[in-house]
């Protein structure tokens, strides 16, 4: 049980809106740095438009590489918001309150970043548009509704729209608060429009709470379907190393593993730079770490199922793919790094209470998880394509290019800039939720001890 936040309501409002109302100098510096990285990424994209996929050095048979790895990675990260926010809201976990907004915002920006990746991946996007529009039902050729490449945009757009609704409903009280506190007339008008007349009447609170709970319940199946469908992009093929029935839950739980880790990383960074020490405490990080232990162990089980049942059939092509992934260079080096950073290093560390309550160690371990999870997707995608198959006469080894590296870096910069910009415009910790937690917090004596407690309606 977390110690409740003990600040006056006015102090809470002031502290949480501080970054919204006042702009520190470092904000401009960080914006310039992220903007420069984004500009570099955009320049690479222009070169890609000019020269096509050969600019990345792609040749048969590996055409799926960093952009697709990035697509899977960022969609994975986007699962954090819903995992932390919707599930914990439904299960009435009190400790969720200060971390939900950051998780939801991370969901939105990582999803938007993920959606850019297929455009980059296509090299010359107008050709993709030519295939997609107008939609050709008559030919029965690609694109057709039975293709996972059509399921993908449907699932991702649905997820994005429902996440935006979910975040907006949760934001309403804070938008009203920002409206009431804004001194700048432009901001006041903007927040007035966005707050949609929220005045905090009991009816409005009731409707807002019910809408939040309903959306939490509705969004969960969408959250599961999105990464399942992404996994089926790979698994419905009969390509060795990709065709495994465990892929859907394996991808979903992997997404939650990397997503919740990313939430911890972002929360720790925001706590430091926005001076939110009164609101994000060791207890919150501890609870997230406990959640991560359960998630990581489940993910480990599914990883074993993927590996075990890859080899189970003893089919030569399947075995050869796993051998390549594990024993040939450069995968021989990357595979142990993946296992170590995604599982063997962080999970045993989280078993120690001191680590779970240390911001420094939690930052290190959660960054480590995401290094590993990015590598996991890379190890999954490239070796499977690179291996020479039966009727294939042109093949070669894949070497990543600088351009791809810049695209990956730019995608990180885009997400960070997005989260930071959001935090500049609106409170990154839900003020209304934190204050509700303060009201519901109780304490009562059991024997000689005061036990922290929470009210339940």
């Amino acid at each position: 049980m977390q110690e409740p936040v003990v600040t006056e309501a006015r102090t809470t409002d002031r502290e949480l809106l501080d970054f919204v109302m006042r702009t520190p100098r470092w904000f401009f510096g960080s914006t310039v740095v992220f903007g420069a990285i984004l500009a570099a990424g955009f320049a690479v994209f222009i070169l890609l438009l000019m020269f096509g996929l050969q600019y990345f050095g792609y040749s048969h048979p590996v055409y799926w590489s960093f952009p697709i790895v990035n697509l899977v990675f960022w969609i994975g990260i986007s699962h954090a918001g819903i995992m932390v926010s919707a599930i914990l809201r439904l299960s009435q976990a009190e400790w969720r309150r200060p971390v939900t907004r950051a998780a939801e915002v991370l969901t939105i920006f990582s999803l938007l970043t993920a959606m850019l990746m297929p455009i980059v991946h296509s090299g010359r996007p107008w050709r993709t548009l030519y295939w997609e529009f107008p939609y050709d039902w008559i030919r029965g050729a690609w694109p057709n509704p039975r293709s996972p490449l059509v399921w993908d945009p449907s699932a991702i757009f649905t997820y994005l729209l429902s996440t935006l609704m979910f975040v907006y409903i949760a934001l309403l009280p804070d938008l009203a608060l920002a409206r009431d506190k804004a001194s700048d007339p432009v901001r006041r008008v903007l927040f007035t429009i966005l707050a949609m007349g929220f005045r905090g009447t009991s009816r409005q609170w009731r409707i807002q709470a019910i809408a939040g709970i309903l959306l939490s319940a509705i969004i969960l199946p969408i959250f599961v379907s999105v990464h399942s469908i992404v996994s089926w992009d790979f698994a419905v093929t009969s390509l060795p190393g990709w065709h495994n029935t465990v892929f859907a839950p394996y991808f979903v739980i992997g997404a939650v593993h990397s997503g919740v880790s990313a939430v911890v990383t972002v929360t720790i960074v925001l706590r430091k730079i926005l001076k939110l020490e009164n609101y994000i405490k060791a207890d919150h990080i501890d609870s997230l770490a406990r959640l991560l232990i359960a998630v990581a162990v489940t993910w480990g089980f599914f990883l074993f199922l993927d590996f075990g049942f890859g080899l189970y059939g003893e089919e030569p092509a399947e075995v050869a793919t796993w051998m390549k992934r594990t024993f040939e260079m450069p995968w021989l080096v990357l595979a142990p790094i993946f296992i170590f950073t995604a599982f063997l290093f962080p999970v045993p560390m989280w078993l120690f209470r001191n680590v779970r309550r240390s911001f420094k160690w939690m930052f290190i371990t959660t960054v480590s998880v995401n290094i590993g999870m990015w590598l996991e997707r890379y190890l999954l995608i490239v070796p499977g394509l690179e291996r020479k198959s039966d009727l294939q006469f042109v093949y070669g080894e894949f070497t990543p290019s600088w351009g791809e590296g810049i695209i990956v870096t730019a995608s990180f910069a885009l997400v960070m800039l997005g989260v930071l910009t959001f935090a500049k415009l609106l409170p990154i910790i839900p003020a209304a939720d934190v204050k509700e937690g303060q009201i519901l917090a109780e304490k009562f004596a059991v024997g000689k001890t005061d036990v922290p407690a929470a009210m339940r309606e």
Partner: protein
Amino acid sequence: MIKPEEAALQIKQRPAFKPASIRPNLRHAAIAALAILAAAGIVAYIIKLGSWGEAGRAKWAYPTVALMYILSTAAGAPLVAYASRAARGYWALPARRVAELYIIPATISYILLIPILATLPPLEGRSNLWFNFHAGAPFLTDALAAAIMVLAGVGMLWISTVPDLAVAWRANGELSSWQRALVFNWTGTTRQWIAARIGTKVFGAFYLMAYIYTHLVLSTDLGQALVPGWRSGIFPAYHALTGIQGGLALTIVTLFLLKRYSSVGRFIGNEQAINLGKLLLATTLLWFYFFWSDFVLVWYARIPSEVAAMQLTIAITYRLPFILGFLGLFLIPFVCLIFNPVRRNLWSLAAVGGVTLVGLVFDRIRLFVPAMSHPDPFHHSLGTNLPDAFGPSALDIVFLIGWIAIMALAFIWAASRLPVLGGWELRHGAMLRREQQFMKGHVYVLGKPD
């Protein structure tokens, strides 16, 4: 406001609450019927052993269904206790011991496991999870996995029962030396309490891991490894999940029966129904997700060996058990459980739980009968000629029903020897929960000390 039963909140620390066991009576018609069915089950088991070698593995197809059914329901139930302890779910306090006691029937199922494992063919020339690793696989490895699971479960049950047993035995006078040994000389010191709390969680965590591992190896070795071309990575996870679903359903049905027919019923009520109902709904939805993840890949990739295996277990040969399993494990529970009134009432929830338990029998039939009855697992595909369905003989039906009765009787025996409610956990819960006035209404305050 969802709150516990009044009796559960009224338990005070002094005078000590004496947790009760149930008192079954053979003169009761239901108990007598169970005893007769159980005796028939034992006779059927002896007949099967007596005709060892005839008809080979196929003769053990339906006993395998009985084994995997018990391992899915009785072995799944203790996870309800562990999960609620790990998540500090106070709503489950009256259900924890009930769920844990099911480890006793799960232990008895070991008698079935040994002869069934002995019928398995050699590993060479067929798909297997052991990659031709010969040191005892699959017989010793599978038996060891199940043994570790059972030991961890018994450990969890024993540690959680020690404080209650100490109270119950002390009420009858001084403890004998063996009683003192069994309760680790329990006097209720702070150190002992800390050890008891940590012990239940540690044994529970081991039990969960052993449960998953046991389901992984047994569902593979007794199931898909015996059907050429059946290669599904999600299958062990599906099997473990349906086990948890069965465990939940069994706990719900047992709680309903205890509420209806025993003196401990006053501690059990709608608080348990609401939360168990949510969990049952969640596992029901997960059933569909896991099934669909398996099905869509086979349907889409159209690899002939996988399609043939799917036709055997789902679409053609064992279509009827699949449909009945689908109805019992997904469609009927889903349609019922989405309605709040069904989930909020222990009676209606128990009816849904009963349907789930019946559906699980048919699901296990369509998974393990084709595997155990298939004479030739040494290929990579079933080919185009699917084997015929292997129907149950009268002896098989008696066996199946008899062993389910043995499971029920084993639970009743355990519940008559050990307190069926966790008295110390109920007291702990009563101390940490209270109702109070808040503004114009009443709220329920929940203390969470750690």
